[in-house]
């Protein structure tokens, strides 16, 4: 049997996808022009699928800080912090991210994926119980695989179901650790953190919240859904990423936990990989400084995404449950989603094609992410193209239309 024959089903699925036009997993941009535009297939294309929520990838201050750090400390650290040591900017970034969240301590990781992998697999030991939201990101599921703890899923965003499952564990040994997200990456819905925090307090559990998609886009100071809902003191660990709102790469964990630094010698995804390179750390420090002092970017992305969400709902698209920097369009089926995604690209709009099993409820989605750097004209242009393609393919006013979408009278208010 061929080594990779186990992936025969995947190969067939990929061939079917590519037969619809392009391979959605291998889009190759010829040139990146800005935070919102690139050259694809020889012409300019609007970027609506990059998670570049605050548009900081081309921010002059961030680029200058990155270049300075590169010149000062070189292209890479060539190893892990436990072996090769900590650079001054690693420690400075940890101090700054802890200050930003008002927490005692922070650890930075080489990717956001590794932050979840490292934290969850390390704090959840053999007799512990991990209770994860059913719609959790792959990094959370993979962390669970790496952990020795028992893993239980609770129904998506359902605090009552979480309480029931915690109740079943009341006579069990070990700690109960709840893991959820601020904003869920596929539909852009936010966690019911007040209810979940209440259950956590009542049942005496530990709470981890991944704010990957809400850092900078939610909360008065950009600290995410935990800040917005007033539950920061209930959250034991906030996980996040530098790869979305902060425009680079890397992940972090912040916490008030005493002895937090013990994790540095227990957390394998932190210990056994190379640390972030100076150029990345430099730009992230500058980006964090920007969002710490300038709330306008977060306000801008909320306004733009709300406008796009309401307009798409008004036109009859089945959208996600609430406006966020992620705007998801539910397609009637996989084939319609593939056609829609290809037609958008034909007309110069890049989005994400999200298909089962990567999606909740086996939905086929066109997933758009909005940036503070998108101009009003770019949003209008993308909107017009989406509506035109929606009409052409007959996916408007679909049966999937979300009943919680705003009524037409509120559109464009």
């Amino acid at each position, binding site marked *: 049997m061929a080594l990779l024959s186990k992936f025969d089903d995947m190969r067939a699925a990929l061939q079917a996808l590519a037969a619809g036009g392009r391979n959605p997993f291998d889009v190759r941009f010829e040139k990146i022009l800005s935070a919102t535009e690139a050259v694809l297939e020889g012409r300019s294309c609007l970027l609506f699928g990059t998670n570049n929520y605050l548009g900081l990838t081309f921010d002059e201050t961030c680029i200058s800080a990155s270049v300075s750090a590169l010149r000062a400390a070189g292209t890479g650290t060539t190893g892990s912090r436990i072996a090769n040591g900590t650079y001054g900017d690693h420690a400075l970034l940890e101090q700054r991210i802890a200050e930003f969240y008002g927490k005692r301590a922070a650890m930075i990781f080489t990717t956001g994926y590794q932050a979840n992998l490292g934290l969850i697999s390390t704090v959840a030991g053999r007799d512990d119980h991990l209770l994860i939201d*059913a719609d959790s990101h792959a990094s959370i599921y993979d962390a*669970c695989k790496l952990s020795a703890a*028992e*893993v*239980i*899923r609770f*129904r998506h965003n359902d605090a009552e179901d979480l309480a*029931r*499952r915690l109740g*079943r*564990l009341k006579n069990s040994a070990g700690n109960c650790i709840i893991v959820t997200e601020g904003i869920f990456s596929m539909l852009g819905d936010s966690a019911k953190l007040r209810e979940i925090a209440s259950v956590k307090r009542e049942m005496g559990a530990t709470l981890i919240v991944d704010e990957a998609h809400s850092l900078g886009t939610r909360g008065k100071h950009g600290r995410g859904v935990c800040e917005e809902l007033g539950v920061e003191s209930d959250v034991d660990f906030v996980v996040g990423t530098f790869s979305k709102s902060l425009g680079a790469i890397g992940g972090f964990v912040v916490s008030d936990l005493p002895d937090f630094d013990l994790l540095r010698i227990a957390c394998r995804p932190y210990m056994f990989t190379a640390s972030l390179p100076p150029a990345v750390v430099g730009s992230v420090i500058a980006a964090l400084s920007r969002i710490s002092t300038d709330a306008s970017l977060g306000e801008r992305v909320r306004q733009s995404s709300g406008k796009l969400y309401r307009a798409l709902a008004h036109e009859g698209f089945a959208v996600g449950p609430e406006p966020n920097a992620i705007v998801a369009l539910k397609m009637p089926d996989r084939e319609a989603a593939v056609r829609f995604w290809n037609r958008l690209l034909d007309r110069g709009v890049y989005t994400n094609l999200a298909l*089962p*099993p990567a*999606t*909740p*409820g*086996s939905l086929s989605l066109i997933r758009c992410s909005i940036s503070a750097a998108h101009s009003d004209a770019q949003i209008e242009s993308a909107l017009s193209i989406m509506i035109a393609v929606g009409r052409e393919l007959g996916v408007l006013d679909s049966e999937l239309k979300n009943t919680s979408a705003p009524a037409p009278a509120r559109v464009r208010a």
Partner: protein
Amino acid sequence: MRGEQLTDHIDSIETSVIELLAHRVPADIKVTAETRIVGDLGLDSVAVLDFIQDVEDRFDLSIPLERVAGVQTIGELCVAVQTLKRDAR
């Protein structure tokens, strides 16, 4: 239906589990204890986990993911449910 009193008898568990699948799989698929959950039912991995949640609700228990990973057939799932129900006492 949640948490209703059901006997621990394996046939009773199997009947309930097969009932829970009725709305998830086409009517022409005959489900038995030997049916493989992944492969025979046409469910993707997320749909399988959603089905497992239905089973958890019906029997008022939680089936840890590592336990789910070791289950291949409907019959094996029923045995896991039976064991977890007994362990919970």
